């Protein structure tokens, strides 16, 4: 299949046509033509390298009522993603080679995005003993990122061993930084508002203390550390300090922590209940600045679909989490691009190149060059839309953005040369699967 994209603006600001053949970028430059090609008029559109999510909950196997690899892949493609890293908290947990291979192969079969499984650090996410990290690393899924996300590897000795052991296989631990004792029963950011609302507080220190411990452990054993979903200004300061000391740590922030703050909890609407919790507006501003400055390396969605009944209830009974794949780019644009803090080139870095590098996913280091795998998305940054259910393509409807006007729209997404989204619409599953095959 051949694609001809005309008049796209690249992340560096230049305009070009692109020809895609056999899954790679075959030609670049003005005035290109290609016989029999599918033509995409990209005049006025911004081209970005295929987005790479380092933090996705696909829920399969085990929680297929919430999401499947297929539905999550479709949500990802609709949001401009061409690769997602699937978190390990499935049932069974992704703590063996068998489970990670199954998840990876389901992703391959559906073809919307490259699905990279994340392996559990500990057996059953129980935080007691290491899972079969070597077997998962050496499996067909070639796992490189290990995380107990949803739970913190809180035992200091186990965390130390995990950091050391994954070095053997060139992997990285992605830590969900949440001191469990400080957050027992916690419902929202601890502060004046949680006290007023009578919701158990989730102190910033519960996150910051774990990050501080872990960067020191990473330094001590000379390992890589990735910190999931930073949510506080204090966490930014710890990461800043660690990087200044040369500690090899990377940090991520979610789109929602860049846009939303704790005041949204005031109506007890559980769509705003998330782990880590929405924080103060000062934290939101600190996270934006840290992303612009490079203290925070990447944006990752923490896409967390849940069935409706787990959100249609009182706040403290509701599940934690929001879906985020479909809205991520719009939210990033609203939070940091339209304000001028990040350029589209920066967006390409924090949502594609760097997350791919952390996940050791090949093919994203030199996008828009001849011979590079054709993973990209075309967006219309000038579009504005009221975010609605029709924008959601996974099984989860637990988005905090319903009814909110957001900028930007994904017009087309191409994964390994195959269009997964055209004219703003997802391509049918059979078409995508067949073309990839």
């Amino acid at each position, binding site marked *: 299949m051949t694609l001809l994209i005309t008049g796209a603006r690249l992340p560096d600001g230049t305009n070009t046509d692109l020809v895609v053949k056999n899954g790679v970028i075959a030609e670049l430059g003005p005035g290109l033509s290609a016989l029999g090609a599918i033509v995409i008029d990209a005049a006025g559109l911004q081209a970005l390298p295929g987005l790479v999510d380092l933090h996705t909950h696909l829920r399969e196997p085990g929680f297929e009522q919430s999401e499947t690899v297929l539905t999550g892949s479709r949500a990802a493609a609709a949001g401009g993603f061409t690769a997602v890293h699937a978190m390990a908290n499935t049932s069974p947990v992704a703590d063996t080679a068998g489970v990670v291979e199954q998840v990876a192969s389901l992703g391959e079969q559906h073809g919307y995005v490259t699905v990279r499984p994340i392996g559990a650090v500990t057996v059953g996410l129980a935080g007691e003993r290491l899972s079969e990290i070597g077997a998962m690393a050496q499996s067909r899924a070639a796992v490189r990122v290990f995380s107990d996300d949803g739970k913190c590897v809180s035992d200091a000795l186990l965390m130390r061993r995990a950091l050391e052991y994954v070095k053997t296989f060139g992997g990285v631990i992605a830590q969900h930084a949440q001191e469990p004792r400080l957050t027992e029963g916690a419902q929202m950011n601890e*502060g004046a508002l949680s006290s*007023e609302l009578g919701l158990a507080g989730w102190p910033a220190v519960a996150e910051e203390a774990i990050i501080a411990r872990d960067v020191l452990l990473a330094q001590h054993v000379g390992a890589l550390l990735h910190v999931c979903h930073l949510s506080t200004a204090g966490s930014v300061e710890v990461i800043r300090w660690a990087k200044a000391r040369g500690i090899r740590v990377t940090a991520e922030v979610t789109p929602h922590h860049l846009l939303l703050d704790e005041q949204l909890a005031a109506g007890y609407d559980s769509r705003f209940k998330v782990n880590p919790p929405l924080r103060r507006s000062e934290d939101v501003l600190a996270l934006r600045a840290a992303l612009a400055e490079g203290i925070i390396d990447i944006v990752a969605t923490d896409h967390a679909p849940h069935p409706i009944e787990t959100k249609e209830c*009182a*706040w403290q009974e509701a599940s934690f989490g929001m879906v985020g794949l479909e809205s991520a780019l719009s939210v990033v644009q609203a939070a940091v691009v339209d304000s001028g803090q990040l350029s589209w080139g920066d967006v390409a870095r924090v949502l594609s190149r760097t997350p791919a590098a952390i996940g050791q996913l090949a093919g994203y280091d030199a996008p828009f060059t001849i011979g590079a795998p054709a993973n990209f998305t075309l967006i219309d940054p000038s579009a504005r839309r009221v975010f609605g259910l029709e924008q959601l393509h996974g099984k989860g409807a637990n988005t905090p953005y319903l009814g909110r006007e957001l900028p930007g729209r994904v017009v087309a997404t191409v994964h390994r040369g195959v269009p997964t989204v055209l004219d703003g619409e997802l391509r049918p599953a059979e078409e995508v699967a067949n073309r990839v095959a």
Partner: protein
Amino acid sequence: MKHLLSVRDLDRDTAVGILDLAEDMADVATRAVPKLPTLRGRTVANLFFEDSTRTRLSFEAAAKRLSADVITVSAKGSSVSKGESLKDTAQTIAAMGIDAVVLRHGASGAARVLADSHWIDAAVINAGDGTHEHPTQGLLDAYTMRKTLHGDAARGKSLDGVRVTIVGDILHSRVARSNVWLLQTLGASVHLVGPETLLPLGVDSWPVTRGTDLDAALAENPDVVMMLRVQSERMQAAFFPHEREYARQWGLDDARLARLAPHTMVMHPGPMNRGLEISSASADSARSVVLHQVANGVSIRMAVLYLVLSGSGAGA
């Protein structure tokens, strides 16, 4: 008034109006037949996801004195204890035809969620939600203070200048929260006393003063001392080391009782832990208005039921 979810939704005139209406309701109790036909044909559902005998009985008595029909669902031995959700339980009883739901729930904000959900059309009265609020308790406490201070001349009055000291587990207390906001609205000043572990983070932004020394607080001769119930499981969670230490530091014991100014009234929302936060002598003393609080609770709940159920959307 469509719902009563939080005392923060009440402005000063509305709050005084509720207290005045409760005075009228209290007069009913002195009649030969202590009953009004006002809510005949209306149905009130008491939906108690959390056990609370005194609040449930108080609402039942209030509804019956207004001639309403009452359905009660409480946690023990009901679908609620079988894990049925708030939505399903509310919709189930709503399908039987009800006009108001009195909701007690362990989750903060549950009444707000039910009122905002459009799952049911009925009026929602918050009868205690987690550690958030207990609006009718706040109202009955304000009523009791006003009645004790002004007797038969209470009607129309606010609580301007009244000084209230609330002692104990502020952090976990919905009663304290409803009192803080309502007393501020009514012009009283509030002083909170307890161990630092049981004073909520951010309490400095509340319209109160705060301290940790009960003796110093009592030396200021407050008009009201309100003792809060302390749950012994707080000890296990390291909020304080031992019941004896708690009683010594923050209990209204006999010695402290003896030092109270003549005009100081003693309040407690119940149920009391005698010997822990309050001594028997304090609870049973002439300055204790604990039983008045219970009696006044029925009048306040009659007033609230009347306001949410009389006419369509009438009142505040």
